[in-house]
């Protein structure tokens, strides 16, 4: 069974007097162990799609199934809490906390089982994305962009979720740093059997992924290439 699947996803935005169709009956599916990238022109609707599968917004019609169950039934809040991790382009870390605390915020919110020594677990996860204990205890604003994004990834995976959703996570980073981040995502998919879904503008990055979904602005639907 697909871990994530959309059924006739339909979404519009108001555009003057009319409504502009952003997603027109989208049917796509995602599996564990694969690294997906989403490409598409600016303004085509990539972020919109991600916010729907991340349950940050509600589709007008259609369904999103997680392990075959509609996320509406699971409950949006619970789905976000226990089933997915989100990584944003602008990191979205809590500025007055250090890296460790940022990760532990998510860990203490989820209902998924965490290790008894939550702090040690968090430090290990941070270590796995390249944040050592010194940096883990530093305030967020004293970390570089790349480091902050690693913390954000650590936060997204800290709750033992199977799905990682990322919107242009390397958009603010230089080439070398981007590569390291992409590397982390690849490893998450291939070594830890996660389903990673990532929006990017870079064909080069897309080439490194297992499946590319291209949002066509004529049809407002995806063309899938493996």
């Amino acid at each position, binding site marked *: 069974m697909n871990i994530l699947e959309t059924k006739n996803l339909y979404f519009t935005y108001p555009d003057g007097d009319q409504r502009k169709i952003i997603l027109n009956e989208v049917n796509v599916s995602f599996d564990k162990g694969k690294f997906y990238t989403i490409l598409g022109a600016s303004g085509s609707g990539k972020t919109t799609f991600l916010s729907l599968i991340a349950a940050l917004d509600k589709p007008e019609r259609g369904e999103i199934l997680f392990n075959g169950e509609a996320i509406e039934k699971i409950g949006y*809040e619970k789905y*976000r809490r226990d089933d997915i991790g*989100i990584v944003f382009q602008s990191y*979205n870390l809590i500025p007055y*906390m250090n890296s460790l605390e940022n990760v532990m915020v998510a*860990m203490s919110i989820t209902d998924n089982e965490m290790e008894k020594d939550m702090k040690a677990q968090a430090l290990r996860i941070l270590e796995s994305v390249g944040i050592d204990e010194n940096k883990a205890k530093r305030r967020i604003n004293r970390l570089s962009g790349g480091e902050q994004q690693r913390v954000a990834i650590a936060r997204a995976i800290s709750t033992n979720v199977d799905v990682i959703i990322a919107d242009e996570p390397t958009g603010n980073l230089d080439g070398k740093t981007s590569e390291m981040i992409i590397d982390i995502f690849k490893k998450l998919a291939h070594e830890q059997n996660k389903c990673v879904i990532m929006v990017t503008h870079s064909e080069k990055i897309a080439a490194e992924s297992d499946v590319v979904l291209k949002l066509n602005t004529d049809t407002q639907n995806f063309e899938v290439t493996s």
Partner: protein
Amino acid sequence: MKWFKRSWLSITRNKIKTGILFLTTFIIGSFLSSTLALYLSNEQIKAEIKNKLGPVATVHSYYNFDEPYADTYDKYFDEYTMILEKLAQNPAVEYANIHYSLTGFASPSIYDDSTMSYQDYEAMNKKAVPLICYGTNYSMPIEVQEYKMEITDGRGFTEEEINTGANVILLPENYKRNDNQAIQIGDQIQLYYKKDQQIILEYQVKVIGKFKQINQLPQDMNLSDCVIMPNQTIEHISLSLNEAWLSFSDAISHGDHYDIPQISISSPIIRLKNIDYLEAFHERATLLLKNKNYVFSSASDIYDAIAGIIENMSFMSKFLVSSAFISSILILSLITTMFIRLRKHEIGVYMAVGEKKNRIIFQFIHEILFIMLLSFNLSLLAGKQISNSLSEELMDFLIDPNIQTITQTDELLNPEQISRDTILNNYSLSFDSSFLIVYEVLSLSVFTLSASFPLIYLVKSKPKDILSE
């Protein structure tokens, strides 16, 4: 990391935000607490003055007597007693203490100094003791109930004696018989009225009790030369005296009974059950007494005459405290809206990781509540200083030295002669528990009104909208 810990981190680490909220609240709180203290203190002082004066009223008569005097006098007396009885029937009335009195009597058989023998007494005074017949309309005189006098021997009246006007009296305890014997309860004594060495009327009364005045009475009334008896009894005596005088004066062709003492009503006091009834009672009684010969006056009149400045202060402080309250809600709403908007992304993050909405609200409410309430409570100290100088400023502003203050008020209704000066000399602001409770309630409602709306609005919005702004 629970919401509680998050809020604590935010308070301690966002020092500038915490500081701004704290300082603003402190300034606002000082204004709010000082004006509130002023307002509540004035209300309290108002209530104290009213309580001290008590819910009392009286009717003074300013009757113009025409000729023939006897007829108009009877008319006056009937009218006056009717007015008083009518007022006394009001259910708000606790009692109407009405004393008839009749002067000019004496007793040949008793004297009023138990410390010396009659022989010594007579050598000094040579005269029979003049007595005032002093009436009561209560079987146990109000003066006894209010600890102004006590019955030291014998008993009070019975209802029947009061209603029928039995010939029974209470005698001051220091009286003694001329034969140096003590007066016994049950003894009959003689009262007489004498004119031009002629005895006009003799009247037998029975002593049923002895009394002693133990506290001051209104208008410095002294009971030591009074025999107390039912009002009805005095009416009987007065009637008998008038008749006796008529037949006597016929014989010597005198005029009407202008020349002899007439029954009168002294210091009637109407006390209400509750101070809150006074205003309404005052209004109704004033309406009832359209007759210009009688003037109703109550503790309200005294209050109006002496408490004007407190009323003005109270009015101004009410205005000040409400404007402090409203402006604090406006200003703090702005600040908290800013405070929360600045942390929109943070709220978005909590939503993105699936935090429950009520916990997000708890965190922010806890943060704001903690800072605001701490600040509000510390501002009490500043408020205390400010309210002191505020009250002084207000007083200076309100007291017009060119206006003469009323110093003399109705002694019957204001026996302690409380004046504007006594009020001002005892003026003090109070920060008692009722002030604290009202202040806590006020500051909590300022918090609730200013913090919850922006917060609820924010949490009600979609996470995507919050994150994408």
